[in-house]
């Protein structure tokens, strides 16, 4: 009989051990359909100008009201200019979109709205966390694929389409099917000059841009725990480039320390209660994942992409591959097309590739730590003569202010970089910051797709320190030699 009880007890323990994903999921299920499609309650809805106008319009046409406007945090970021703010938005089409956002938020309301020129305006994925509007255990959605960034706070953060934006506005819920779970464990310690961006790119190089499709990725291991919140946001931001809609990191002291005292963080007794709950937001010791990928941090060196997909990446000591290196015919042709687009010859060492422009910014790498890392390389040096433009675009007004308080703007300006107003800028080039056809850019953003930074432009993804080093050298170079 004793044995039976133990067996039953063990079975119960097995059922009880959960991944962080299970916990986040289960705590938000309002209803489940027969086929497993669930209605998830949404705690935070981030809104920006590009993917929301049709949703507000749809709501209005159907005569529906937003369910809970205090879940909304809105800002203008994708279209806003990064120079001459005194002139307003000169592009009439962009201006109409931003004015539409202003009018929509004015009409319905929001917890917070940081419109164009507000001192807290910035990239939607930068402003949420820095204002404490992204809290552990939340479901966070935004009409933007890089919403995965917020997973750094142990959130279930989904990028959604415009129909879903409308659905969340109207119902405060999202229809979802549960994903499989993938644990990406990065053990060991990265070397000096190797950053969160390099971890993310190395992972994508390993599993491919569809490697995470259908999975929710939990990032763990000593190298992830050693990252700051900024670094974790960089890694989670890139989860979508690995094909996963969501990526997250468990709560630890780093998470809690970051959130203390932020404008929308809980205060007093409520803070203590919240922290007690947040500490449970970790995968149980013996939780089972559907798949596990391991990376050794000590093996990761600074990464640079050479093609038109983030998986086309190599270490700074590497070279451009040749199509013949790939046995799969579709892949081989993809590589040949990428090299033609990128204007690269097979077997060229990465360090010999010259750059025309440098972009330090985007929701991947525009936080204070990123700017510090780039400034450390730029300090006392000057950009190379062949570099036509080196842009530093802080992720938000608050990041910009902090950087200026630390004197980083002076460092960049003295080194020949431009110091701009916050926004998405040359990450997707909807404003005037863009590449001309054929121009080659060292960029800290997340996508190197054809035309992403301007029609015909050629993008190489890398870390902020590596981008600053490329600006100084005029070509890609191992930043570890400059430290």
């Amino acid at each position, binding site marked *: 009989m004793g044995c039976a009880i133990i067996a039953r007890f063990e079975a119960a323990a097995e059922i009880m051990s959960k991944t962080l994903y299970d916990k986040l999921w289960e705590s938000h299920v309002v209803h489940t359909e027969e086929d497993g499609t669930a209605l998830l309650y949404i705690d935070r809805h981030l809104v920006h100008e590009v993917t929301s106008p049709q949703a507000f319009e749809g709501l209005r046409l159907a005569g529906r009201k937003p369910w809970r406007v205090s879940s909304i945090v809105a800002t203008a970021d*994708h*279209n806003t200019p990064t120079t001459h703010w005194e002139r307003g938005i000169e592009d009439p*089409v962009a201006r109409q979109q931003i004015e539409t956002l202003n009018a929509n938020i004015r009409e319905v309301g929001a917890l917070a709205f940081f419109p164009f020129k507000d001192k807290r305006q910035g990239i939607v994925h930068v402003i949420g966390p820095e204002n404490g509007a992204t809290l552990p255990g939340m479901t966070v959605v935004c009409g933007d694929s890089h919403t995965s960034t917020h997973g750094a706070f142990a959130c279930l953060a989904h990028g959604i389409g415009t*129909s879903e934006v409308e*659905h969340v506005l109207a119902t405060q819920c999202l229809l979802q099917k549960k994903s499989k779970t993938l644990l990406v464990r990065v053990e060991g310690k990265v070397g000096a000059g190797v950053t969160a961006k390099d971890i993310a790119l190395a992972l994508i190089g390993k599993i491919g841009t569809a490697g995470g499709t259908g999975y929710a990725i939990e990032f763990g291991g000593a190298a992830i725990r050693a990252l700051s919140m900024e670094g974790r946001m960089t890694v989670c931001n890139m989860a979508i480039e690995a094909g996963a*809609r969501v990526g997250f990191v468990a709560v630890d002291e780093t998470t809690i320390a970051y959130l203390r005292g932020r404008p929308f963080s809980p205060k007093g007794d409520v803070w203590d209660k919240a922290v007690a709950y947040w500490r449970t937001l970790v995968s149980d010791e013996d939780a089972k994942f559907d798949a596990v990928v391991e990376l050794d941090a000590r093996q990761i060196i600074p990464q640079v992409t050479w093609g038109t997909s983030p998986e086309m990446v190599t270490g700074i000591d590497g070279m451009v591959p040749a199509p013949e290196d790939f046995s799969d015919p579709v892949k081989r042709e993809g590589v040949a097309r990428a090299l033609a687009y990128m204007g690269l010859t097979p077997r060229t060492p990465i360090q010999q590739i010259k750059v025309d422009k440098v972009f330090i910014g985007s929701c991947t790498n525009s936080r204070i730590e990123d700017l510090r890392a780039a400034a450390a390389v730029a300090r006392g040096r000057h950009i190379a003569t062949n570099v036509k433009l080196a842009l530093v675009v802080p992720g938000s007004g608050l990041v910009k202010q902090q950087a200026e308080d630390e004197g980083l703007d002076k460092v960049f300006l003295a080194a020949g970089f431009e110091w701009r107003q916050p926004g998405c800028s040359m990450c997707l080039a909807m404003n005037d910051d863009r590449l001309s056809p054929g121009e080659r850019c060292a960029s800290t953003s997340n996508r190197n797709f054809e035309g992403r930074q301007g029609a015909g432009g050629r993008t190489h993804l890398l870390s902020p320190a590596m981008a600053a080093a490329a600006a100084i050298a005029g070509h890609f170079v191992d930043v570890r030699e400059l430290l």
Partner: protein
Amino acid sequence: MEKFIRHEGLVVPLDRANVDTDAIIPKQFLKSIKRSGFGPNAFDEWRYMDHGEPGMDNSRRVRNPNFVLNQERYQGASILLARANFGCGSSREHAPWALQDFGFRAILAESFADIFFNNCFKIGLLPIVLPKAELDALFGLTEHTPGYRLTVDLPGQRVIRPDGHAIGFAVDAFRKECLLNGWDDIGLTLRHEEKIRAFEARRRVEQPWLFV
């Protein structure tokens, strides 16, 4: 949402992997505040010889004769044959809007990016995952058979070739039901209004910091 039950149409093969949403609809067109009118700019950078901007008269632009969608034999196609990881990249629903506006009703591919896949269902554009071997055969047949057409049968969950060969595919029961009936997700969800309110009320008590 437009209903989808059975569709028979001309097939066009787009033989590349990782076709991203920037390629499907370049960002300069995302400045529109409308849901329609994106079709003429679908695949803009591949389709035209010049650089497209909103407001241009697309009928006067020079087309790239090498791009498959421009070829005479594929005009009027409504079924897109694609490769792996179709629709990767951004969450922009403008990508499925553009494909639908162009005239596509179904996309057959080896795999799709999650958000794109999801967005398609919301507007009644059916994304279908097929095994690689079947797709390879379809690419060959489409290229070698002028006027090659397929039938997509959603109730039977089959893609039927003109030679009678049927290829089964999977689709979530809930999504299938919505497509067959043309149901609007919001209306369906609001049937659970009481449940949502009860959930919210409990959450307000248990985690008050979420409701500042």
